[in-house]
């Protein structure tokens, strides 16, 4: 990645507003000037930077019609959704769908390139407003400079999206790099759920440098599910942020299955009184996969609540890093913040690193964090085997129960089923 991106990004197609194209060019300079991460930097502690530095990556080519048709048929998840966008190599490969009912209510759900032209002012209000606070400022700049396509979801005031919308991000072709962008904004008193699925079309290496920004207006409710099932040779570096205004609730869930190396940075800002957030994740690395999860729960106002639950089951030579920080800023009194990371160690060669952190600068705060690492205990296995369940099935059952605790937090039955289906397929493969 270092070498092949020395060339400047090509001009973007379309009649984009000046504020967008100018910022895109500035971002390229910012990327080039920012230093490469070092292990001595606390935000990159334990990270295997050798895996980050690879240099064969190229800009994506078009997806052929035949391949495109195949990817469209593979883009199936929810039985009923309110809308669907399918992107392959950061290009639209099927017409975006949105139920007429919601379109009439003013819901915007469209590719970012269209929104930039048609809803420029609305996009500009929230587009890339949050800095990368957890170490990837350089890659956030790269994303902005290379960004080609993404999605924009905007729910007007008091509108409720009764069914979730879905987005498929496909990566196709050898060493292809995509930079999908998701901007999701809910107006005051509204509610919505959205699922995004990132996957490779084939087993080739590639890179995904995505950014997801969730912006919840006063008393609105947003649920975001992201599943990452890229090829085992691919790399991913995802920077997410959520911003909850007064009384708003944001629930985010991440499922990490693929990639040789993946890093996910998630900052949840609680910027209004009474705001709350749930941050959930399940990571199931196997072979030599490394999954690096960095989180920040940023309490800026009084009476805010955050609840983080990350569950990792590690197989073979897998490696995980969890670095989470609860930051309670001055004046954010009466904060409730919880953070739990549990690692289930399934092999004698896996490695789990945990860095749960707290910084408390306010009064009347209830905070706790817990981190555990350990195997399934012999007692648990014995109990199931005593009931006639073979050991391998018993292990799978225990692990499934272990991760389900985090999936249950999504609080949306259909979305939970989609996620559990993906987890189940992974377990079946491991078992066979």
């Amino acid at each position: 990645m270092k070498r092949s991106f020395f060339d400047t990004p090509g001009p973007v197609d379309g009649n984009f507003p000046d504020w967008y194209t100018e910022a895109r060019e500035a971002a390229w300079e910012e990327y080039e000037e920012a230093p490469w991460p070092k292990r001595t930097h606390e935000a990159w502690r334990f990270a295997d930077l050798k895996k980050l530095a690879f240099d064969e990556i190229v800009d994506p080519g078009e997806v052929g019609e035949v391949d495109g048709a195949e990817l469209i048929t593979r883009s199936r998840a929810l039985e009923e959704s309110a809308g669907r966008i399918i992107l392959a190599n950061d290009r639209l490969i099927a017409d975006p769908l949105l139920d007429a009912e919601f379109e009439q209510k003013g819901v915007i759900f469209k590719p970012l390139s269209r929104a930039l032209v048609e809803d420029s002012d609305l996009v500009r209000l929230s587009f890339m407003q949050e800095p990368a606070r957890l170490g990837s400022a350089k890659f956030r700049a790269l994303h902005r400079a290379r960004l080609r396509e993404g999605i924009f979801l905007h729910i007007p005031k008091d509108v409720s999206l009764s069914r979730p919308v879905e987005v498929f991000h496909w990566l196709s072709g050898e060493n292809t790099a995509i930079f999908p962008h998701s901007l999701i904004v809910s107006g005051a008193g509204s509610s919505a759920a959205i699922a995004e699925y990132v996957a490779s079309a084939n087993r080739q290496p590639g890179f995904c440098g995505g950014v997801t920004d969730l912006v919840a207006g006063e008393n609105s409710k947003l649920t975001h599910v992201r599943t990452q099932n890229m090829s085992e040779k691919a790399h991913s570096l995802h920077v997410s942020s959520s911003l909850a205004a007064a009384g708003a609730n944001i629930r985010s869930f991440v499922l990490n299955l693929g990639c040789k190396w993946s890093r996910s940075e998630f900052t949840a800002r609680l910027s209004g009184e009474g705001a709350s957030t749930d941050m959930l994740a399940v990571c199931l690395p196997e072979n030599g996969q490394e999954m690096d999860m960095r989180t920040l729960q940023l309490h800026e106002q009084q009476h805010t609540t955050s609840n983080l639950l990350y569950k990792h089951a590690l197989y073979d030579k897998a490696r995980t890093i969890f670095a989470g920080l609860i930051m309670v800023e001055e004046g954010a009194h009466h904060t409730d913040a919880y953070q739990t990371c549990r690692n289930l160690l399934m092999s004698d060669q896996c490695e789990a690193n945990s860095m749960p952190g707290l910084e408390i600068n306010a009064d009347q705060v209830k905070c706790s964090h817990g981190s555990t690492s350990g195997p399934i205990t012999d007692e648990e296995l014995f109990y199931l085997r005593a009931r006639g369940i073979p050991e391998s099935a018993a292990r799978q059952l225990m692990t499934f129960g272990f991760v389900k605790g985090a999936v249950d937090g999504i609080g949306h039955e259909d979305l939970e089923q989609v996620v559990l289906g993906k987890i189940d397929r992974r377990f079946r493969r491991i078992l066979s």
Partner: protein
Amino acid sequence: MSNDTDTAAGIDIDRDKGDFHYDVEYKHDAGRGLTEETIDYISNVKGEDEWITDFRKRALKIFEDKPMPTHWASEDLKAINFDEIRYYLSGGNAPKRSWEDVPDEMKETFERLGIPEQERKFLAGVEAQFDSEAAYSNIKAAVSDQGVIFVNSSEGLADHPEIFRKWFGKVIPSGDNKFSALNSAVFSGGSFIYVPPGVKVKHPLQAYFRINAEQFGQFERTLIIVDEGAELTYMEGCTAPKFETATLHSAVVELVAMKDAKIQYITVQNWSANVFNLVTKRGLAHENAEIRWIDCNIGSRLTMKYPGVIMKGRKARGEVISIALANDGQHQDTGAKMIHAADETTSNVVSKSISVGEGRSTYRGQVHIPKHLKGCKNNTECDALLINSASRTDTYPAITVRGNQHATQHEASVSQVSEEQIFYMQQRGLSEAEAISLSVNGFVNDLVREFPMEYSVELKRLIDLEMEGSVG
């Protein structure tokens, strides 16, 4: 080489509890700043062997090369001016202080802590009236019958190199961190102890006496070797406020517990608010050995101290129990480091911190369990109590576990003395201050009990004293 004119000015520093000024003349003074000449001077005064001088000089090089660890530690470290520090002062002429010179507040503090009259004078720096030399000699005589060697660092290296040289700088190499390198370059004072196989030292050995005979050290170096099956409890510090003239205290403490040995190292320290207290402490536990650090940190401007245990032998055990109290203008950055390097090793960390006023307390921990090991366990608990709305607390643990034969758990909580609790106690006739003090004592009670009785009594009083004025 003597810079006596600088001496008086050097001691006349800002003290938070009154203007405290003594005219002191030192026999040996290496002047300000640190160069190879400083080291030659120290080595010369001490009459050290060449290998020690070389060791010091290599360490100086490392110290100069290493950057300040501000990429993870407090920026406040930058406030240390290494050129202004006096790296070696030694007695000879006893300081001429008298009890009348001691400020009333300090006398009152001693009174309320219940420190005996004789000791007060010693603690206040009024020397020669407290016969520490005699007390020290008594202890030394009692333990040396059992073959225990209890000397200062210079004597240890000069008189017993066959015992101490083998382990000196091995548990904590000079290059471990910037401050262990600094200590290795300019160390003086501290205790070197050797306990022969099978000897269980009944009475705790106290640095208290040792140090007085030597003057309080800024860069003390301690090395304790407890041989197979032997046991030792060592105590350093005291609960009384120490009106330290030096602004930088940087000690290195190395413990070696051979097979089946047990070491308990107890520290209670209460520094004045101008002191940077940057200490490296680590123990090496061989098969079935046990090392316990019991640590209480009060005062100082910035304390950075993370006692560690390397569990090198099968079934070795490591433990850190720590209490930290940070008041206005103070930052207690403490924690623990547990390195598991053999099968079936277990470690336990229990840390409790209290932040009062604008004080800030930080827990920083590291637990490392490599692969190819079996049956390692770690338990870490850290609890923080915030007293006032401006109080701060942080927790930054790092836990690495490889393989599925181990179990670790980490828990941390942050809480407040709740209004309901205080209200409940006030209803029952306690004042607000008493109520807060009671709930703080309840918070640390299970750890305070780990300290020897006389320490725990003083500790409780000390906490009460620190809590004063934090209400309202």
